[in-house]
């Protein structure tokens, strides 16, 4: 009879600091010579958030000329004001970006106000339905649904004032605020963070005439955009090199995290960081690792969240555990949301970062891996090919077998792997950092306000 295993997540005290840790325990009857799966110590206490960085803090990373450019562009905008509106102040990628972007804009003396729309549960149920439908999911668009959406937009519109020079409305939830356009002097920009490549026709059919009233739209990738009457700009999502997840950290901390998680740094470490979601193909990653393991003695770290509060995440985590079997070199970490520093350390400890997604948005975990100078193996989907120029800034794969082969190749050709890592980091520095994002906003504001005419590259 096959070995029967039972795994549970238990909470145990960790040291004398009052923190608790979660340990993934495995109870099985392995042969005596078999190593046990490591018992990771996971922090249960969120750390206090650090203060947002100042512009000068970025100088060692991007250089003085880059900051001078930002200051010059901002100087032209002195006296102009901006309002940004989204639907949540905490949680989610948009709030994360705005929490960094807005202090920097204000430091550059481009006064930027951030407001969050409010709504009842019925509104957010509708907007969640819209969100899924815009990603291609099914949705029944009824008159009532549209009335709820417009009613809350109208309530927020009545509550807010619109005295600024520029209005940036993030995502579909507050899109109806454009109705105030006729009473304002400002320019209106719609920043769409989601993939509209395959939207539900009824939902997009409702939203499109509203979006066309804006002065411009911004998408994260050309493939996410739709045909619109208005100019469309491309703003890549970005990472903050000074955030907990991306800042430089002491080697001693990296070592401690590896020890806590039972990772052996003497052997190659292959890591995928992503929530336990089938679209991230964690099972495929394990299958690729098993193919690699026949040739190279390595470890696989699958670290992510979402398995605690998401029923589907828990199911996927169980599938992952089943696929992992009793291999002690597969380390599965279900991390809490405040694990940014630990994720940073895991990425830095890794030999290779994998993001073998089957479907992806932009794939900021790829950006994070590239920023750490690591060779990244990514699925050729969503925004990953924008970041990974095949064999130049990383490698793209289309299958489990391809993923396994590329991992083997990189493990056995460390000079090539190092070159990919160097190029990848430069690619992020050039295109996907917060400072690049600030520059894009400053440029767009100037163009929108007619303060500068884009130069004809052929004009003297």
């Amino acid at each position, binding site marked *: 009879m096959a070995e029967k295993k039972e795994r549970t997540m238990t909470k145990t005290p960790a040291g004398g600091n009052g923190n608790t840790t979660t340990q993934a325990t495995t109870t099985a009857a392995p042969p005596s010579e078999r190593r046990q799966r490591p018992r990771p110590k996971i922090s249960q206490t969120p750390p206090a958030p650090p203060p947002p960085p100042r512009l000068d803090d970025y100088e060692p990373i991007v250089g003085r000329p880059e900051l001078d450019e930002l200051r010059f562009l901002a100087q032209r905008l002195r006296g102009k004001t901006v309002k940004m509106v989204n639907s949540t102040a905490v949680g989610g990628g948009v709030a994360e970006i705005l929490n960094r972007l807005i202090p920097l804009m204000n430091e550059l003396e481009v006064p930027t106000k951030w407001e969050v729309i409010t709504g009842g549960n019925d509104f957010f149920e509708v907007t969640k339905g819209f969100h899924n439908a815009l990603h291609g999911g099914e949705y029944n668009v009824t008159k009532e649904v549209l009335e709820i959406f417009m009613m809350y937009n109208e309530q927020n519109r009545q509550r807010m004032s619109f005295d600024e020079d520029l209005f940036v409305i993030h995502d579909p939830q507050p899109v109806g605020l454009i109705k105030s356009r006729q009473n304002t002097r400002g320019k209106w920009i719609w920043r769409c963070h989601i993939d509209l490549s395959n939207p539900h026709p009824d939902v997009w059919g409702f939203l499109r005439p509203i979006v066309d009233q804006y002065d411009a739209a911004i998408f994260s990738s050309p*493939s996410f955009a739709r045909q619109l009457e208005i100019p469309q700009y491309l703003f890549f999502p970005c990472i903050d090199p000074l955030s907990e997840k991306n800042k430089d950290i002491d080697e001693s901390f990296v070592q401690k995290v590896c020890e806590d998680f039972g990772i052996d740094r003497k052997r190659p470490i292959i890591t995928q960081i992503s929530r336990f979601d089938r679209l991230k193909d964690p099972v495929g990653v394990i299958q690729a690792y098993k193919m690699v393991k026949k040739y190279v003695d390595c470890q696989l770290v699958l670290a992510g969240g979402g398995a605690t509060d998401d029923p589907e995440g828990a199911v996927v985590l169980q599938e992952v555990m089943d696929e992992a079997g009793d291999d002690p070199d597969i380390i599965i970490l279900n991390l809490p949301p405040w694990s940014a520093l630990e994720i940073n350390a895991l990425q830095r400890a890794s030999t290779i970062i994998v993001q073998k997604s089957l479907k992806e948005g932009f794939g900021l975990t790829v950006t994070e891996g590239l920023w750490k100078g690591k060779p990244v193996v990514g699925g050729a989907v969503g925004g990953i090919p924008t970041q990974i120029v095949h064999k130049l800034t990383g490698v793209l794969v289309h299958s489990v077998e391809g993923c396994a082969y590329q991992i083997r190749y990189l493990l056995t050709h460390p000079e090539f792997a190092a070159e990919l890592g160097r190029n990848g980091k430069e690619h992020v520095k050039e295109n996907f950092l917060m400072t690049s994002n600030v520059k894009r906003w400053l440029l767009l504001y100037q163009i929108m306000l007619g303060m500068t005419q884009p*130069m004809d590259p*052929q004009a003297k």
Partner: protein
Amino acid sequence: MATTTLPKPARRWARAPFYFNTASHLLRIGRQRADNLSQLLEGLRTCPEDSIFQHTFRTLAEHHFIREGFSNDFAHFAFAACNEVGLAERLASVDVREYTSLEALRNRIVGIVDEYLKKNPRSGERAALEPFYFCASDTVVIPTTAVARNLEEFASCLENISVHSIHYHFIEARLRLKLNSNDFSVWLDEELGLGTLADRLNRIDIYTSTLNDVRRTIQSIIRGAL
């Protein structure tokens, strides 16, 4: 008979200083896309000139850190999305510095793709792995504080300017100048009478160097003349 000799390069002063600028770019998503090489050819014929600029000159700057294997977006699409290595090689060999107008550059690229598809008609309709999206960029020129009045100051400024400034003056410049040259070489020749030095700068290979390599090579040539 009296003869006049020019002072040594390091002692010459320019009548007009060199003001270093840089350029910032904002990407616009165009209306055209190509799902195969025939559609790419059609797009190449009809897209705005600033799309040609974006996918050749600009993309070179966006990938300035790569020494080999990346030349322009059209070559990359032919290679990575269409698996047409022969076409990719020919497109990659297009040196933007040989063109002083975007129309001429467009004609060259169209000519390469057209000729290839005539010889390989089945390649035209084969679906690409990923579509090609025609983009363009809005460019805003930004002055920097770097100013050079002689060769020594010029070398010193090169140390501190961004790679974007080097791209603006050294690569994009020929579209403005309508010359097979660059802002640095023109200034060195016209203001300091250093024609030989100017020529040496103009021969630096941008396709086998990163822009930081280009910076170092220029510095090395200048230091040799000081």
